[in-house]
């Protein structure tokens, strides 16, 4: 058995640098956050252990609203990202001239520093001077300028769209890779049987990229749930708190109001939510992908 034991020791040697690094740089602050969530830490020099107070404070009607809003926001953002990503990947996967260039052209939102991308959207949403409102007026679709960030309903969607925009390149890239991994002969077989392009997409492409879609949507979900800059720069969670998600609320509490304890409790809560998600995800995927191997 010594052969095996050596291998295990070696595996740990390989892992050690990465594990240690992450442990020191991230795990330590994580534990710090966890401990903080049970204290009344603030700008004050002294902190006291307060037990569950921070957690019990969180649960009120407003926060319930925030949670629900976060879920809805995340749900729509991830779903739209996946839909657009799959759509884009499908288009870019077709054998038409120029697709290499088109593939490159999908990347910029991913590359540009996030804040800049958001500023550009801010410009687009501007009612008086922005492109969307301007175009709509030009084509006579509306007669007064539309300020997209003014109303809770439009601002909610505007932030989602921007989040989608930032996430789409990576999703598209992964979906494209997943599609390219599907053996060509499956399509040829289906075509020989008379299946048209759309039918092939629906019955072959879509089912076969489902595992990749699940992985991607989970990674995307974690990122989206914690998506901060977009809402912060565009609306600061307003108007009337209608775009305030959990992470915004956490930031406002911890950094804005310097209530580090309460902020930490919120952060821990976010992590718990996401962990539950991920466990469910692993359950679902292991069931979905079993028996599908060729």
């Amino acid at each position, binding site marked *: 058995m010594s052969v095996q034991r050596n291998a295990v020791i070696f595996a740990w040697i390989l892992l050690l640098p990465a594990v240690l690094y992450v442990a020191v740089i991230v795990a330590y602050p994580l534990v710090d956050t966890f401990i903080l969530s049970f204290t009344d830490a603030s*700008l004050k*020099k002294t902190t006291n252990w307060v037990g569950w107070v921070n957690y019990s404070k969180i649960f009120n009607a407003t926060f319930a609203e925030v949670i629900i809003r976060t879920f809805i926001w995340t749900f729509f953002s991830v779903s739209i990202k996946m839909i657009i990503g799959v759509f884009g990947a499908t288009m870019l996967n077709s054998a038409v001239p120029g697709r290499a260039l088109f593939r490159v052209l999908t990347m910029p939102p991913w590359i540009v520093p996030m804040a800049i991308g958001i500023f550009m959207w801010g410009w687009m949403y501007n009612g008086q001077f922005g492109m969307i409102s301007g175009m709509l007026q030009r084509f006579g679709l509306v007669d007064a300028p539309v300020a997209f960030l*003014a109303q809770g309903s439009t601002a909610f969607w505007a932030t989602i769209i921007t989040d989608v925009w930032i996430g789409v390149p990576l999703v598209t890239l992964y979906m494209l890779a997943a599609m390219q991994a599907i053996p060509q002969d499956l399509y040829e077989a289906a075509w020989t049987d008379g299946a048209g392009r759309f039918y092939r997409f629906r019955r072959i492409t879509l089912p076969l990229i489902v595992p990749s879609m699940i992985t991607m949507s989970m990674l995307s979900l974690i990122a989206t749930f914690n998506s901060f800059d977009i809402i912060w720069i565009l609306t600061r969670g307003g108007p*009337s*708190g209608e775009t305030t998600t959990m992470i915004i609320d956490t930031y406002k509490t911890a950094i804005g109001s310097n209530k580090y304890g309460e902020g930490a409790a919120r952060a821990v809560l976010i992590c718990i939510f996401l962990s539950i998600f991920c466990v469910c995800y692993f359950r679902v995927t292991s069931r979905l992908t079993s028996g599908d191997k060729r």
Partner: protein
Amino acid sequence: ADKEISWIYCGDKIDPIHEKYIKEWEGKNPGWKVTPEVVGWEQCQDKATTLAAAGTPVGMAYVGSRTLKEFAQNDLIVPVPMTDDEKKSYYPNIVDTVTFDNNQWGVPVAFSTKALYWNKDIFKQAGLDPENPPKTWAEEIAAAKQIKEKTGIAGYGLPAKTFDNTMHQFMHWVYTNNGKVIDGDKIVMDSPEVLAALQAYKDITPYSVEGATAYEQNEIRAIFLDGKVGMIQAGSGAAARLKDTKINWGVAPLPLGPSAKGEGTLLITDSLAVFKGTGVEDKAIEFAKFITSPGPQGEYELQGGAGLTPLRPSPKVDEFVKADPSWKPFIDGITFGGPEPLFTDYKGFQNSMIEMVQSVVTGKAEPADALKKAAGEIEAFK
């Protein structure tokens, strides 16, 4: 080696005038060095706070005076007591903005007040007297209505985005109606004066720029500069910009509410706060006072364009106003102006205020209810 006073300096680069006086001070205090760290406006204050919270405070930082109470209560900054002479040198009420528990906690370094700008061409177009700006809220609302109805152009620019200046703008209305948010340790916001201000907000909204909650004051100002709104309330910076446009404009004191005792405005100051625990507190205070003393400060604030209002009366200021009368309304408002309310959790307070304004502007709540709700909420932030 030199002893260092680190200074978090907000902006994109150090003002040459400050640079000059830092040199001068360093020359007078051998062995001392002032090391400014330039941080963009957006993150400036957060950075100073983070550093202090993490236990490595900077020597001195440029902060909004509104946060001084919070810092002081958490024992992060040291008091910067002023002599009576020093106090007297400022315009009235200014020292109040940095005073708490009978002590001064910062040295005012920048000051701003607001006045009403109006577009004379639009007034003319709407059949209003272009040389006669509204003096009261009622006139203002009526003018806005007439502009909107006659020309289709928005009559008033109301900023209500989720941004700190949304509350500032509202506080101008509160102070032009002799209102108060907090009196000592008592929340007195749920008063007829404040309610009237909120009601006025509701009344003027229909004639304001569409989608008030999408704009903060700079964006509203841009719309005014574009000639697409009849009136706005803005700082002195707007005047400098208007001179570059073809717009026919005027500037007047803010219109007054029914309970007003005189011209009023919100007095916003930024201060230099001296942080505790650096070991150079005394020298930092010394430097802070030097750099804000009438000489350097006078040079700094009267450069124009930055939107600053002078902190102290002086012959130079008078000269200046004479040369450019558009300065007058900004200085006249000081007498009856009020400070930003000081709260322990200033951000919490501000959020409640913004929420209140937005809920009224978007029609989600009646002014009375919104006011009651906000007044209740802010109790927790004292």
